């Protein structure tokens, strides 16, 4: 892995087709990606070591999967479609368990799922809801009184599920709407107290308006997806796509792969049409990226190369206040008498506690009076207590400094990524400028945009390499990792600088050459970092200095 890559002219000319170049480099196992655009890697065509196999599914295709399962159950158990659906939903779409339970005791299974009434009708349900027959015996014999809203208007229509607990259609509609809208509940049980019958999809469809029914279908899909370990809903707002990633379905697989997936959709699902200000347009462009997220954890961005467990550990550490405590530990001492926390901000070692007026030596923490005549120079330096106290102090300081080293670099890249919006805008301007000042066409200035995107991508990788490096156990592996990291970082910074440099019309051809070269180089370096780490995870090469879920406990080592 040398850092001195040379590129032939061929590479440079093909800079916009570099995905194809990489495809030739890798063992491409798929068909040629002739249909993909320049800036996008079609996940199915070429798969690199750091990528996982995944499929993007729309809501409609999930519904098809659900239908297939329902059909399957319907055939085996001989129940109708609506009952099969209710059975599956209640049993969390676990077909095997459902079939087993159903074969064991069909009635019990049906009742538990709310698809059938308990057989011998106890007097219980007839108490309140059978007001309907009672009402017919009352003087107003032909009017129905809804037991929910007490409406007795002649034009209301009584509705009920198979259990016969009637209520007016308005109440049913309001009830089911409130269940779906307010509680996000897809199983709407009968309104009667203690009645477990669940409304069928048909009933729900007839009771609610179209929007609510759409929401109902969405809830069903979400429930299905939540029940399947190899499916995950896209976390982007108002996106309804699902990703299937069997390779990351089990928790143990998360120690060997970083399942970054993309749902296939781009941007926001509903962009306001009409007049869009420039900043809105920019936001759309930036957020118009793929919906990338991690299948294995809750981070909704690309955290390669580091695995979920370590990434989450790092984020938690950065969020925790534990570092504040660390600072206090390394910068302050406690008064040995009243335990007040004291920060020494200058002056000599003769301390007088402001609170209890205790006089002591800052160096050895002993009472000042014991210093005798040797004032202002602590001669008890080598005594055991003092040595211990200093040891723990310096250890804590070292650990803090170590953390800050990694954190600052991590935060730096995060900050840069946030500023990407500005950079995109600036680059856009430069590209226009170039088109005006030189003879380059629109397509010829796209190298700038491509470079900015690459920088942005690499900064993401770099950011997470610092989280990884912080937790990597010392050793040759870590050294190699940090070498790769250094090479990538240097390349990225070089490219960034080139992008920031002012544009002189006469220099544009050389600038273009340089930027294109660097972009390709940066891309290669990024691949190397990602590939090497991904392979390391597969080989189990990485060792940590902290306990990470799924990995072996760290070997104790010297700080």
């Amino acid at each position, binding site marked *: 892995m040398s850092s001195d890559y040379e590129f032939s002219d061929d590479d440079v000319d093909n800079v916009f087709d570099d995905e194809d170049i990489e495809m030739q480099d890798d063992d491409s196992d798929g068909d040629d990606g002739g249909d993909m655009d320049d800036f996008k890697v079609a996940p199915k065509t070429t798969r690199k070591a750091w990528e996982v196999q995944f499929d993007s599914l729309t809501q409609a295709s999930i519904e098809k999967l659900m239908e297939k399962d329902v059909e399957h159950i319907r055939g085996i158990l001989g129940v109708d479609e609506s009952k099969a659906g209710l059975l599956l939903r209640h049993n969390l779409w676990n077909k095997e368990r459902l079939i087993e339970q159903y074969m064991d005791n069909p009635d019990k299974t049906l009742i538990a799922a709310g698809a059938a009434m308990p057989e011998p009708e106890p007097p219980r349900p007839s108490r309140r809801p059978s007001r309907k027959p009672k009402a017919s015996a009352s003087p107003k014999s032909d009017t129905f009184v809804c037991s*929910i809203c007490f409406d007795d208007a002649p034009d209301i229509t009584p509705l009920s599920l198979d259990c016969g607990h009637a209520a007016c259609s308005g*109440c049913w509609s*309001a009830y089911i709407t409130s269940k779906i809208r*307010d509680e996000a509940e897809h199983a709407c049980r009968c*309104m009667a*107290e203690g009645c477990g019958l669940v409304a069928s999809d048909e009933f729900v469809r007839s009771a609610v308006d179209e929007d609510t029914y759409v929401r109902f279908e969405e809830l069903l899909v979400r429930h299905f997806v939540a029940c399947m370990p190899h499916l995950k809903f896209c976390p982007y707002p108002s996106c309804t796509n699902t990703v299937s990633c069997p390779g990351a379905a089990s928790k143990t697989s998360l120690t060997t792969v970083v399942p970054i997936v993309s749902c296939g959709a781009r941007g926001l699902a509903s962009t306001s049409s009409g007049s869009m200000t420039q900043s809105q347009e920019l936001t759309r462009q930036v957020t118009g990226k793929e919906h990338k997220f991690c299948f294995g954890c809750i981070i909704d961005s690309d955290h390669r190369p580091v695995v979920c467990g370590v990434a989450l550990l790092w984020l938690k550490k950065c969020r925790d206040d534990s570092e504040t405590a660390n600072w206090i530990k390394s910068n302050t001492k406690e008064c040995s008498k009243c335990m007040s926390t004291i920060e020494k901000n200058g002056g000599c070692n003769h301390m007088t506690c402001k609170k209890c007026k205790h006089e002591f030596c800052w160096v050895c923490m002993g009472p000042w009076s014991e210093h005798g005549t040797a004032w202002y120079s602590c001669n008890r330096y080598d005594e055991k207590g003092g040595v211990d106290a200093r040891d723990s102090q310096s250890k804590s300081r070292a650990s803090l400094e170590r953390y800050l080293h990694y954190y600052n670099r991590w935060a730096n890249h995060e900050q840069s990524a946030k500023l990407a919006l500005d950079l995109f805008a600036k680059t856009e301007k430069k590209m226009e400028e170039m088109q005006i000042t030189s003879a380059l066409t629109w397509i010829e200035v796209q190298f700038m945009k491509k470079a900015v995107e690459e920088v942005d991508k690499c900064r993401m990788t770099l950011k997470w390499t610092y989280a990884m490096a912080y937790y990597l156990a010392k050793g040759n592996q870590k050294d190699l990792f940090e070498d790769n990291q250094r090479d990538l970082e240097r390349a990225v910074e070089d490219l960034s600088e080139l992008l920031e440099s002012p544009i002189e019309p006469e220099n544009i051809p050389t600038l273009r050459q340089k930027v294109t070269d660097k972009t390709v180089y940066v891309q290669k370096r990024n691949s190397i970092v990602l590939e090497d780490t991904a392979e390391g995870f597969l080989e189990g090469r990485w060792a940590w200095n902290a306990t990470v879920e799924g990995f072996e406990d760290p070997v104790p080592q010297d700080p």
Partner: protein
Amino acid sequence: MDARLRRVNKEIADCKNDKTSNIRIDLIDSSPFHLKGSFPGPEDTPYQGGHFEVDIVIPESYPFQPVKMKFITKVYHPNVSSASGAICLDILKDAWSPVLTLKSTLISLQSLLCSPEPNDPQDAEVAKHYTTSKHSFDETARYWTKMYAQAPGAGVTKEDTVAAAGLEKAHVDQFEALGFPRAKVVDVLRRLNYRGANVAQITEDRVVEELLK
């Protein structure tokens, strides 16, 4: 007419006509959606003889979402917060059904007073008291009923913090004699659940340690 208003009106009227259940529902202000329910404490319980008032707020989506109820009267009960009157009862949450009415819910509250669920408590300290010593708990609940729910009883006019906290006067006196303020002693002993069999398990040092905090 709005279905919710019609239903509430009917429920209030029904409750007025029903003389047997002893449940009352009254308006608090001019709104029909903010009510006050009241019922007598169930017999053969420490709450017997008391008159319990409940604050009722009827939400926008009533009867499809449950009513919000909390005790106005202070109640010493594991499932009722001794500070705020908040109630832990399944039908006020996920077990709610639209066929339930204000009256039936208030009856459920009444029966909650008969059968506390200390394993699913709203007020952990009260629940601890209940599980440690049922006898002492009953005593305190009875005291609260006399004190706050106007149950007829001799000698309860001024609030006695020791009895209200369910503690023994002797215990409080013992620690007060060490020079701690009485209110603090009551607070600490209540928190430590210094009652019944627990007294033997909590050392004096432990109590003093807490008192010094």
